[in-house]
């Protein structure tokens, strides 16, 4: 009796979490531009996929996410390995603080940095500033995921390699890194989705040539009713959902 009430309650919470997205998706297939159901249509998807600005922004987003994921994954994996070997209070503390820093604060601090960079080195805002910002906030996620994986891994193989005369680098490169593979990939996927999704920091450090997908979605959402936003949003949520499921699958495979 009590158990079934609890299950009912759980269903209600799931509805609260999922229904808004579901309704959004349903209305992306509405042929009318108003919130009155007038029949199924892929019209808004067609419009979204022909939108030049949207396509360019998607390209930018993917490029930025790819570059920053690559950098953050390499830097983060190396750091996680070193931290696992011997903890560094200072680096861990700094990364933890960066994790809890509100996005808006990170964003304006980078605005201030890039303004200084422009004044003294004539470096303008653009794709590169967005990539650097993304590497910076993705780093801690990579370190967290890889470190968690290292802590649950079996390390007898690495010790065996060292005992048999491998250099520390060889032991890392030939033994630990291959075993760490799935953890690194899941960290990279997490960094990738985090980068793809960011609006607050990106909008502050982007130049005129580096408008991203979330920036377009934000601008459209502010302008008012346009079912094309629903269509793009549905596509983004589906894409991100697939990436996340993939990442969790990899993470659970120990």
């Amino acid at each position, binding site marked *: 009796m009590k158990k079934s009430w609890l299950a009912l309650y759980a269903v209600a919470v799931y509805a609260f979490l999922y229904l*808004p997205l579901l309704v959004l998706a349903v209305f992306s297939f509405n042929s009318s531009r108003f919130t009155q159901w007038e029949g199924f249509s892929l019209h808004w998807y067609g419009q979204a996929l022909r939108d030049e600005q949207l396509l360019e922004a998607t390209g930018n987003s993917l490029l930025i996410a790819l570059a920053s994921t690559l950098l953050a994954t390499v830097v983060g994996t190396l750091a996680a390995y070193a*931290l696992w070997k011997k903890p560094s209070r200072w680096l861990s503390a700094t990364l933890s603080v960066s994790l809890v820093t509100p996005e808006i604060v990170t964003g304006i601090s980078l605005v201030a940095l890039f303004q200084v960079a422009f004044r003294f080195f004539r470096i303008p805002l653009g794709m590169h500033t967005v990539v650097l910002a993304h590497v910076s906030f993705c*780093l801690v996620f990579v370190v967290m995921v890889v470190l968690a994986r290292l802590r649950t891994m079996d390390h007898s193989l690495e010790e065996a390699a060292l005992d048999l005369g491998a250099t520390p680098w060889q032991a890392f490169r030939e033994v630990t890194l291959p075993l760490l593979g799935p953890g690194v990939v899941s960290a990279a996927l997490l960094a990738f989705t985090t980068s793809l999704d960011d609006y607050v920091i990106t909008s502050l450090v982007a130049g005129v040539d580096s408008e991203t997908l979330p920036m377009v979605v934000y601008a459209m959402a502010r302008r008012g009713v346009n079912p094309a936003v629903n269509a793009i949003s549905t596509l983004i949520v589906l894409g991100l959902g697939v990436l996340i499921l993939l990442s969790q699958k990899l993470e659970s495979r120990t």
Partner: protein
Amino acid sequence: MNSASRRLRLFFLAPAWVVTVLFFLVPMGIVGYYSILTRGPYGGQALPLTAESYSRFVDPLYGEILLRSFWIAGETTLLSLVLGFPLAWFLARSGPRRGLYLQLVMLPFWTSMLIRIYAWVFLLRETGPINAALVAVGLIAQPLPLLYNHAAVLLGLVSISLPLAVLPMYSTLERLDYSLVEAAADLGARPWETIWRVVLPVSAPGLRAAAFLTFIPSLGTFLVSDLLGGGSTILIGNLVQNQFTTARDWPFGAAASLVLMAIVLGGLLVSLRRDEDLL
């Protein structure tokens, strides 16, 4: 540690240090410096050094923003804990499928925050599905102003915070020794007594982590209050953004950022025990 592994350690840690120093510590330092500069006549910031930007929080106008941020973050935390606890309990006690159920709770958290907020904008606006349905059923004659108020911001914050509150509560409840609950019941405790005097004290670490994970992001939010509050609910995050964009008073924006950071770090110190680390 021999010299080869010391050199390797340096090589492994150096890139991460470069990134954190250059793109986190130095920017924060610049913000700290700007916060004690004087605002220039055309925006910008200049000497002399002054604490004026900080003293402006005594002004009721800005003090109110600070209080409002605390208030709404507190409401969000309370609601997320109260709504999340029964769910965490359900998850912890739902047998072999609990991993899947937990994933279902966390999935929305990992998918786009921007789009989840936009979904609420879409649902709540005057011409949105909720109002349309209520009018169609005949419950109301005119669409209700559901959007751009305190309640809308709170709703958005709770929907975003809930998964973050459930996760740590779930992990303590999962490890809870259920025989304690049975013992309490056998000894004649009523259900609420068991919850209040056995379950809650045992799951205190999870509750504390849940409170931190919901309070801090809510306190520093910009996007939720921006899209769902639409100017009606200005929080610290919006104040910071406004000072750096439209108002162009960087010293004041920087001071507001540091006030926010001080609160966040205070919360981090309070909620983390000495032996606990985030990383």
